């Protein structure tokens, strides 16, 4: 009998169903092969896993709390838990993956790290682990994002990283990724520390694996708090989709409803959106075949979202696959809805979410709940970096 493949498993060429793979020039082939070899090795390497878990515990501060929001529960008439990734060191879930990959880079004997960043959360996480491990750190960031996420740029520089503006194209995450890949092609001794579940195989599988600690913790925390490890719904925002991949990972092969929240921008039909699963179709960008925002000639369309971390024209191939087959449900939330949700969480709970995570909170308003629902919202990051945006809103 043929073995039933898990949702999170890729085939020999790195495909989840029709999505994924490694669509890269020959120039990166050796690098990806080396990376794949090491990645397979560490999965069963106890010493590596122990070091990873130990850093997550003592350096990052894991497990992150699973917090029952009384006010949200009252409003939506069912228990609503917040997975507090915002309380991690550096302020978001991005550090989980950065720790995993820096240990891998160290094992591979690398001494120079290159990364891309959108909102700057991954850039800060990378700069942080590079400081920790004494590695040279170069972060590409879109010129437009450098402007709108200034505090994170300052943090990266203070941590010793070199931040290089990406000036091509839309000057956002997509272009920062192009520049990071180009740098990697020119410096094949560098380690490319990608920040999301995107890029060529093995990156999507690897990043999802390092982020899966989120759903592993949700399982044991929920079991302790409610007696059962499965909620009925898990909600997470999706740009490339690393926090969603982490929050969903252990639940794919269950009947838990998985809800991916995309950035609707000014509205999915406005022409100013980043809701890839709605307006995108299959295409190849940054080394993988996935859902992609593009025009009829296959040119990549510039996405739009108020949130720099969701402002990406693609989506991780695992999400493209699970959305396509109906395992993951995608919905979208506009800029305005996200901003309102951020304010609401701030006054309800005294928690200021990142703009990205505010999209997941806003999704609560768009879903219907029964009293027997148990909901987990992945609060992927904190909002310190977004204060300027929040303070500029007239109504507040």
């Amino acid at each position, binding site marked *: 009998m043929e073995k039933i493949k898990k949702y999170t498993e890729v085939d020999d060429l790195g495909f989840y169903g029709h999505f994924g793979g490694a*669509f890269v020039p*020959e*120039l990166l082939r050796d690098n990806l092969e080396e990376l794949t070899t090491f990645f397979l090795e560490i999965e069963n390497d106890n010493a590596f896993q122990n070091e990873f878990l130990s850093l997550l515990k003592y350096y990052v501060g894991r497990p992150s709390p699973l917090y029952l929001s009384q006010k949200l529960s009252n409003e939506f008439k069912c228990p609503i838990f917040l997975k507090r990734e915002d309380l991690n060191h550096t302020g978001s879930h991005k550090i989980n993956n950065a720790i995993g990959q820096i240990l891998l880079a160290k094992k591979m004997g690398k001494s120079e790290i290159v990364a891309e960043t959108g909102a700057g959360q991954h850039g800060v996480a990378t700069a942080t682990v590079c400081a920790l491990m004494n590695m040279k750190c170069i972060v590409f960031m879109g010129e437009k994002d450098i402007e709108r996420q200034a505090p994170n740029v300052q943090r990266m520089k203070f941590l010793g990283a070199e931040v290089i503006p990406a000036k*091509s194209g839309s000057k956002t995450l997509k272009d920062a990724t192009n520049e990071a890949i180009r740098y990697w092609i020119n410096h094949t001794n560098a380690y490319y520390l990608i920040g999301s579940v995107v890029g060529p195989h093995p990156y999507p599988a690897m990043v999802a694996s390092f982020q899966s600690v989120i759903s592993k913790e949700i399982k044991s925390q929920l079991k302790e708090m409610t007696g059962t490890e499965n909620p009925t719904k898990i909600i997470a925002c999706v740009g490339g989709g690393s926090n969603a991949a982490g929050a969903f990972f252990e639940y794919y092969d269950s009947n838990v409803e998985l809800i991916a929240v995309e950035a609707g921008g000014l509205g999915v039909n406005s022409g100013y959106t980043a809701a890839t699963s709605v307006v995108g179709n299959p295409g190849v960008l940054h*080394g993988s075949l996935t859902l992609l925002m593009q025009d*009829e*000639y296959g040119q990549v369309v510039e996405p739009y979202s108020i949130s720099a971390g969701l402002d990406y024209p693609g989506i991780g191939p695992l999400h493209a696959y699970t959305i396509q087959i109906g395992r993951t449900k995608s919905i979208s939330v506009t800029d305005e809805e996200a901003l309102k949700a951020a304010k609401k969480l701030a006054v309800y709970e005294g928690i200021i979410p990142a703009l990205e995570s505010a999209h997941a909170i806003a999704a609560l308003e768009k879903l219907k709940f029964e009293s027997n629902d148990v909901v987990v919202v992945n609060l992927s990051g904190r909002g310190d970096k977004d204060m300027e945006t929040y303070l500029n809103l007239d109504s507040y």
Partner: protein
Amino acid sequence: MNPFIKNKKQLSIFITAGFPTLNSTTNQILELQSKGVDFIEVGIPFSDPMADGVVIQESSSKALSNGMNMDILFDQLEAIKNDVHIPLVLMGYLNPVLQYGLEKFLIKCKDVKMASVILPDMSFEIYERFYQSLFEKYEIPMTFLITPTSSDERILKIVESSKKSFVYLVSHTSITGNKQTFQENLLERYSEIKALCKNVPLMIGFGISTKNDVEKAHKSCDGAIIGSAYIKSLIEKRDLVRELTP
């Protein structure tokens, strides 16, 4: 018969279709042909050319803003197909081809007499699994990139699939337009690779810009491919082919 020639010192030029102006593609091809260029790569512009340096990136975005797209490009190639006697190769990233429809793309390639297609972000393995049968159905030979660090085993496999095209050797691991070619330590490897190619022509590209580079290329390979340096010469209104040929 292979339209690409072995053991003749060849010069190939890469142009970006639709650059510097939308309708300049055809004139450039005919002019390069008349100047004795042996074959031409016609670049399909893409919004996110990840293996290209600034010069080709900028020419691509200019071409796109000039309005270049796959339909217009095939119309242009159709208009000159009976006047072109040297091999033309279409080169571009995979996504515009997939969106256009691979089958429709291959039919058009056949119509306008393309000698080969290069899609740098489509690996040999992906080609074998998903696309090879269509390329063979329409008899469009693929050309694959290899690097000095590609294994002999892999080179042999690619050579085996390139009997009606050529092997494209990337001179050194870098994006296009980066001048670090012909490092002494690589020359020996180039010769080894040429031996592995047997009857399949070996053309070298990436970072080749001067007459000296071309001469060196001809010592170890069958031909030299020039891209960024040509685009640059267009901007500077210089006659590069004249500078490069005796």
